[in-house]
C-alpha cells in the first residue's frame, strides 16, 4: 500500500502568481439589464517597467462574469481620463454609461506598489468610492479582484466573491490511460494549483468552511477512500476506508464533522463522522440508496438523495434519529442537492424530457426554477454570496455558471482534457 501511495504525488505550490489561466471563460447568455460601466486602463506613474497586469481588464472581466454589469470593451472607450484629471461626465452620460472607474499604479518602494482607484456615478457626477491599496508582485491579481469586490458591493449591495477559489477534477485520457487531477484555481481560471494527481478516479471535492482544506474521494488504492488535505502544506489524512462505499464527503458548517455515504452495513446510507474523535453516527437507515448529503446552516439538518420511493428524490432530515421528509415531488429524478449559504435555496440535478438540468428550489415556498438547458448537467455549487451557481456540462466536459435567477450564463472550458465537479470555495480570509 505504501508503494502505491508513493506512486502518487500530492503536491502543493500555493498561490504562485502566474499569468496562466487553465480555463477559458466565454459568456453564453447575457442579460439586457446589466449595468453599463466603463473601467479606464489604469495609468502607471513609475519610471521603471510596470508590473505585468492589465488591471482594468481583470476588473472588467470580473464584473462581466458576475452577469450584473456590461463593461465597455477597452477599444470602445469614449475617452481615457486619468485619476487626477477632471472628468467630463457629459461625454459618458451621452454614451449612457452609468458608472466609471479610473485608477493608477505607482511604485511604493521595497518591491511594493500603490494602487489607487475611484468609482464615479456618471449621472450625479459624484465619487462613490475612492481607495488606495498597497500590493506586491505576488498579490497583483488578488488586489485587482479586491477592487472588483469593492465595486460590486458598492453597486449591488451584495458581497463580491471575486477573490474566492474553485476546486474541480480534470481528466486526461491518452491511449486508454487516464490521469485524474484535483485542482484549485481562482474563479477566473488563473493560478491553477494541482492538489492531487492519480491514475485512478478522484471525486467529490468539498471545502472546509474556513477554506483551508479539501475533503475528497480517491480510488488510488483501487477502492474508494475519503481523505482530507490541508491546502497550504499538502498534508493529508485518510478519514474513511470502510468496506464498500466511502463517498460524498461534505464538511459541516462548524468544520468539525463530515457527512459521508458508506455501505458498510449493507447498502448506501448517510453517516456523520466526527473528525477529531473519528466517531461515526448513522443518519439514515433504509434498504434503498441514501447518499449525497448537504448540510443546512443549522449544522444539524441534512438534505440527501434517496431512491426509497423508487426514483431518486430529495429528502430532509433534522438530525440523528429523526424521520426523513421528502421535499421534491416534481419530476422523476432530483438529486445532488447543494444548499445556499443562507439556507434559503437548494440547487440540484433535475431531469425532464430533454435531459438532466440544474434547478433551484426555494425551501420556504417549494417553487422550482429550472436554470439550465441540459442535457447532461450535474454537480451544482453555489457561490458564497449566492449570486451564481457553478456546475458541470457533461456533454462538453466543461464547467459552466448560471446566475441564480437563470438569466446569465457562461462556460469555462479547460484548455486540455475534461473538467468536472466544480466546487466553489467559501469566502477566504
Amino acid at each position: 500500500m505504501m508503494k502505491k501511495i508513493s506512486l502518487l504525488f500530492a503536491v502543493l505550490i500555493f498561490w504562485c502568481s502566474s499569468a496562466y489561466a487553465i480555463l477559458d471563460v466565454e459568456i453564453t447568455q447575457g442579460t439586457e439589464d446589466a449595468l453599463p460601466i466603463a473601467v479606464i486602463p489604469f495609468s502607471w506613474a513609475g519610471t521603471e517597467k510596470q508590473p505585468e497586469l492589465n488591471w482594468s481588464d481583470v476588473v472588467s472581466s470580473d464584473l462581466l462574469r458576475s452577469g450584473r454589469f456590461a463593461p465597455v470593451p477597452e477599444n470602445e472607450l469614449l475617452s481615457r481620463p486619468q485619476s487626477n484629471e477632471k472628468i467630463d461626465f457629459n461625454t459618458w452620460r451621452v454614451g449612457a454609461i452609468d458608472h466609471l472607474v479610473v485608477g493608477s499604479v505607482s511604485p511604493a518602494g521595497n518591491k511594493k506598489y500603490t494602487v489607487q482607484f475611484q468609482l464615479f456615478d456618471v449621472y450625479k457626477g459624484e465619487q462613490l468610492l475612492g481607495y488606495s491599496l498597497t500590493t506586491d508582485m505576488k498579490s497583483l491579481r488578488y488586489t485587482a479582484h479586491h477592487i472588483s469586490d469593492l465595486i460590486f458591493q458598492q453597486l449591488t449591495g451584495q458581497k463580491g466573491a471575486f477573490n474566492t477559489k474553485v476546486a474541480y477534477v480534470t481528466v486526461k485520457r491518452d491511449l486508454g490511460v487516464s490521469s485524474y487531477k484535483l485542482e484549485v484555481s481562482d474563479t477566473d481560471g488563473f493560478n491553477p494549483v494541482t492538489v492531487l494527481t492519480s491514475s485512478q478516479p478522484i471525486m467529490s471535492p468539498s471545502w472546509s468552511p474556513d477554506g483551508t482544506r479539501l475533503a475528497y474521494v480517491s480510488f488510488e488504492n483501487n477502492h474508494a477512500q475519503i481523505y482530507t488535505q490541508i491546502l497550504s502544506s499538502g498534508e493529508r489524512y485518510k478519514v474513511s476506508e470502510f468496506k464498500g462505499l466511502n463517498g460524498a464527503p461534505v464538511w459541516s458548517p462548524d468544520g468539525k464533522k463530515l457527512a459521508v455515504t458508506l455501505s458498510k452495513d449493507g447498502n448506501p446510507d448517510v453517516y456523520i463522522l466526527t473528525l477529531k474523535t473519528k466517531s461515526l453516527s448513522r443518519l439514515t437507515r433504509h434498504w434503498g440508496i441514501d447518499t449525497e448529503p448537504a448540510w443546512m446552516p443549522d449544522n444539524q439538518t441534512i438534505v440527501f438523495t434517496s431512491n426509497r420511493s423508487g426514483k431518486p428524490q430529495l429528502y430532509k432530515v433534522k438530525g440523528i434519529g429523526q424521520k426523513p421528509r421528502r421535499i421534491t415531488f416534481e419530476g422523476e429524478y432530483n438529486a445532488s442537492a447543494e444548499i445556499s449559504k443562507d439556507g434559503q435555496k437548494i440547487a440540484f440535478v433535475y431531469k425532464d424530457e430533454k435531459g438532466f438540468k440544474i434547478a433551484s428550489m426555494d425551501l420556504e415556498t417549494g417553487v422550482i426554477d429550472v436554470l439550465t438547458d441540459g442535457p447532461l448537467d450535474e454537480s451544482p455549487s453555489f457561490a458564497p454570496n449566492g449570486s451564481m451557481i457553478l456546475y458541470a456540462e457533461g456533454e462538453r466536459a466543461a464547467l459552466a455558471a448560471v446566475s441564480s435567477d437563470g438569466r446569465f450564463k457562461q462556460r469555462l472550458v479547460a484548455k486540455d482534457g475534461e473538467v468536472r465537479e466544480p466546487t466553489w470555495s467559501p469566502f477566504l480570509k
Partner: protein
Amino acid sequence: MRNYMLVVLAALLLTGCPAQPPKDDDSGSQQGTDNQSVSDSAQTNKLDDTNKTEGTSFNVGDEPYRKDAINDASSPLSQQTIYFDFNASTIKDEHRDLVTWHGRYLASNPDMKVRLEGHTDERGSREYNVALGDRRAQAVSRMLMFQGATNKQIEVVSFGEEKPVALEHDEASWSQNRRVQLVYEAM
C-alpha cells in the same frame, strides 16, 4: 495485481437477446450448488429458452468449470460483463445464466477470487451513480453466493460513472457503460 486476468468483452450472449423486463434479483435461480453437468443445468434453469441464442448453451469440454475456463474464448465464462438498464440494479433475465455459471465456477474453484466492479452511464449525478454501481455489483454478488461462491472470494467496488468503456453521449455508449465487470484473480 499481475494476476488480474483480462476482462474479455465477448458479445456472445448479448447479440440477438431481446431485452427482458427486469425481475427480482434471485427469483430465476433454482439450482443447487453441485457440479452437475452443465448442459443439464442450463436446461433446468427456469428461463424462457426461446430467448436464448445458440451461444448461451454451456456444453464446452468435459470440465466446464476447470480453472482456466475463464480465459477460454470458447467458454461462456470468458464473457465477464453483465449489463443493466438505466437506473436499475436488477439482473436482466438474459444474464441470469451467465451469472449462475460464474457462481458455480467460483464454487468449484475456491482458490479463485473475483472483483465485481460496478459501473453506470454518465447520466444523473456522480455520487448517486457510485451508489447505483454498488447496488449492481451487490446484486451480482448475491447471485454468485447463491450458487456457492463465498464472501471471501468476492470483493465489490463501485466506480459509478468514472470509468466508461464507451465515450460517446448516446444510448449505444450508455448501454455499454451500465455494467458490472467480473475481474478474476488467483488467491
